[in-house]
């Protein structure tokens, strides 16, 4: 910003200076013109006087010239002495010879007639006039006059002083008048400036200026007042809007807080809030020197229910489980949803391990109770892993990790179990992680192989079927299905593995048939998650169609647990398979929770007695009784009975005596790869030969 004497120049000062500058310019121009006009007038006047004198002298001297009376001419010229400015006067005759003259003392005639032309001119601060003396058209002579311009210079100086005084006084007057005028005219603008300043700095919008006359300033004041009205109204609206917005923000903040910290489905604390509370709980426990327990709970077979009955049923089940869990613990404890079907329970101020275990079992019991969800009576169970502070970890991350690890350990033990963390689990956990990686890799590279174990019919003296058993090649060795299939189930690869097994078994059986071998039905184990999939039957049909294999050469083996998730849906699928022509066998019968009543209506053709019962034959009377009961039950229902895990001759004898006629086990053949199985199919049954 421009400054004057170190201070910023205000707009009004600049305007005043601008006006003064314009006035200065105009005054300078006017003064110059006036001065120039004055000087020109005076000079013209001087010339006129000279001309008048010349005219007069010419007139009066013409007779002297005519009558050659130079004395008379001298007298005439002598009259010029009364004019101090006149330097000299000279009369020449018609031949330009000097006739008479006058000269101020000491002044010579300083011009030559030869260079003179008629008229007047200025030279060296003198003015000269050279004219003819005529009478009519006759030239009688010439007159030369010269006068100094001292009076002109004097006049110039005087005019100059006058002009300067006029200029200075006009300037002062212009300054004073403009200053006064501006002060008067700018008073309302100053008021406006103060008003705008107070509005801008203090936010006071209620102030107004009094209206003025209907000139530009009045219009400006009216405009500013109107603008302030609008701003005041807008401020009010803005205030109202802000209040509404603050309300909305508060509401949204609450919602965001809820969303950020609570699970939308179960309204339980989510992972974020759980971690926060766990951290605080640990801090409290550390400060108060108490213990806390962290339970990691996972619902068993929840994926089966979710996939088979739909997500809506799954969500309802989760809500119900959440409610059950909340009821199962103290109000001071925290129940949260970790994600999916995983819940976390934080128990603070716990007394000892026993009390924790007691609570865990209470929770499992409560969850295990049948639940009516969406018209379906569902049986679920939960696996709980438990980690304690400070024994199993001193921070939230470690406690959560260790509780999770314990939960997997509990799951391995079977549904509805709980397990406390031990540091030895970490190794197992690492192994499981490695196995998980191997399963993913094998699924991607199709690094699975099917082995086939024959089922031998005692009555037919021949093998009547094969069971396809999957093996995973991890690069070094074949991994047992009991090791990697639970992992595959956990990581969601079971479905694609099942489809692969189906296709591979069907294509292999078809290949044997095409090779001219006497093929028999090949049984594949399908997990409950696959069986309850809505496209299960389509997948099986596609596998048969793709291989060109008749449905009677495929058998599906399922476990009793298939019916625990949803009996109605399972039965519906089995009926479709039977209708298709595919036989269904219940594998590992006797180890699960079978309801004998529904066996009657199940569309199954075979019961496979679990190998643990076969292994216990002849050793425990209770075991033999169970086997006998199963055989009696199967025969009573018209089902084919297959004894698994037969490894000894006496087992064959006992089973045969009980009425079982089909066997599967190492006694007859270990599981063989496809090549060895082709050879086997072309030979008599080894077991019978041995027998």
């Amino acid at each position, binding site marked *: 910003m421009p400054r004057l004497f170190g201070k910023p120049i205000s707009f009004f000062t600049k305007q005043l200076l601008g006006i003064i500058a314009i006035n200065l310019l105009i005054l300078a121009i006017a003064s110059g013109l006036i001065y120039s006009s004055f000087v020109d007038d005076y000079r013209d006047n001087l010339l006129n006087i000279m001309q008048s004198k010349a005219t007069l002298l010419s007139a*009066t001297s*013409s*007779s*002297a010239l*005519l*009558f*050659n*009376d130079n004395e*008379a001419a001298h007298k005439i010229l002598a009259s010029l002495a009364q004019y101090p400015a006149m330097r000299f006067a000279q009369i020449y005759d018609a031949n330009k010879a000097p006739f008479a003259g006058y000269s101020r003392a000491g002044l010579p005639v300083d011009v030559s007639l030869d260079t003179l032309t008629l008229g007047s001119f200025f030279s060296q601060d003198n003015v000269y006039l050279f004219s003819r003396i005529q*009478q*009519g*058209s*006759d030239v009688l002579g010439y007159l030369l006059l010269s006068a100094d311009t001292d009076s002109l210079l004097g006049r110039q100086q005087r005019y100059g002083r006058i002009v300067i005084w006029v200029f200075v006084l006009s300037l002062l007057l212009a300054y004073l008048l403009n200053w006064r005028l501006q002060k008067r005219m700018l008073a309302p603008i100053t008021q406006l400036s103060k008003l705008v300043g107070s509005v801008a700095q203090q936010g006071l919008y209620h102030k107004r200026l009094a209206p003025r006359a209907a000139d530009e300033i009045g219009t400006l004041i009216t405009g500013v007042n109107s603008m302030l009205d609008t701003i005041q109204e807008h401020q009010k609206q803005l205030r109202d809007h802000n209040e509404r917005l603050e309300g909305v923000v508060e509401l949204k903040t609450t919602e965001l807080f809820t969303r950020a910290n609570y699970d939308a489905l179960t309204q339980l604390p989510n992972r974020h809030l759980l971690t926060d509370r766990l951290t605080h709980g640990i801090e409290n426990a550390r400060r108060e020197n108490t213990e806390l327990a962290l339970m990691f709970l996972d619902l068993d077979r929840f994926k089966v229910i979710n996939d088979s009955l739909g997500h809506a049923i799954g969500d309802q089940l989760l809500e119900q489980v959440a409610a059950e869990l909340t009821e199962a613990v103290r109000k001071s404890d925290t129940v949260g949803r970790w994600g999916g079907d995983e819940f976390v329970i934080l128990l603070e101020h716990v007394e000892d391990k026993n009390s924790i275990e007691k609570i865990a079992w209470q929770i499992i019991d409560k969850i295990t109770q049948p639940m009516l969800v969406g018209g379906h009576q569902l049986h679920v169970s939960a696996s709980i892993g438990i980690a304690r502070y400070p024994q199993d970890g001193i921070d939230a991350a470690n406690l959560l990790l260790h509780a999770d690890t314990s939960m997997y350990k509990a799951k391995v033990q079977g549904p509805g179990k709980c397990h406390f963390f031990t540091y030895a689990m970490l190794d197992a956990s690492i192994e499981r992680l490695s196995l998980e990686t191997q399963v993913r890799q094998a699924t991607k590279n199709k690094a699975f192989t099917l082995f086939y174990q024959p089922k031998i019919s005692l009555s037919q003296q021949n093998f009547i079927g094969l069971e396809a058993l999957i093996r995973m090649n991890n690069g070094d060795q074949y991994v047992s299905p009991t090791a990697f299939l639970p992992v595959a189930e956990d990581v969601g690869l079971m479905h694609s593995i099942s489809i692969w097994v189906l296709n591979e078994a069907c294509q292999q059986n078809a290949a044997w048939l095409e090779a001219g071998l006497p093929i028999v039905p090949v049984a594949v184990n399908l997990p409950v998650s696959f069986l309850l999939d809505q496209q299960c039957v389509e997948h099986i049909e596609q596998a048969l169609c793709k291989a060109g294999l008749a449905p009677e050469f495929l058998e599906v083996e399922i476990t009793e647990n298939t019916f625990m998730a949803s009996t109605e849906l399972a039965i519906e699928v089995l009926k479709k398979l039977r209708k298709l022509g595919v036989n269904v066998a219940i594998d590992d019968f006797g180890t699960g929770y079978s309801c004998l009543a529904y066996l009657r209506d199940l569309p199954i053709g075979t019961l496979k007695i679990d190998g643990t019962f076969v292994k216990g034959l002849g050793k425990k009377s209770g075991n033999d009784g169970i086997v006998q009961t199963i055989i009696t039950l199967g025969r009573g229902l018209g089902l084919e009975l297959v004894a698994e895990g037969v490894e000894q001759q006496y087992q064959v004898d006992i089973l045969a005596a009980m009425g079982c006629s089909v066997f599967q086990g190492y006694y007859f053949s270990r599981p063989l790869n496809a090549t060895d199985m082709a050879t086997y199919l072309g030979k008599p049954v080894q077991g019978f030969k041995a027998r």
Partner: protein
Amino acid sequence: MEQPGLSKENKIKATYLLHFTKYIHWPAAQSLVPVPLRLCLDTTVVFYDFMADIITRYNASGPHRLIQLEQVVNAANCELTYLQNQVQPSLSQLSHSLLVVESEAVGQPHSGITFYTLQRKIRFSINIDVLAGLNLSVSSELLKLARIEHNA
């Protein structure tokens, strides 16, 4: 020494005589047409010829009153008469004429203008009473150059 022809002095006088017509105003003639100023001479032939010559040129020079030159003896009426010698004042043609005499030596009574020599210059005197009697108006310029005389 007198040169053959007219002397310088007489030439000057002849010229002055012509100039007098410019500074003296004769009463207007009662005529609808311009009437020339009749200048009568009683001089030598040489003077007369010289005068005739300059009057001819004068008359041809511009729009002014013409001058008619005549011999006194031949003139019927003269308005301006130049005399080198005394003449009979009773001549009727001179009764209203302004008489200019060559010098005081001419001794012509009732002469209005008389040439004389002063410091070797031709000067003239004017008897304003005579001119007043003739009802003539004389320019002050001329009077300023002349020696003013009155009737005795």
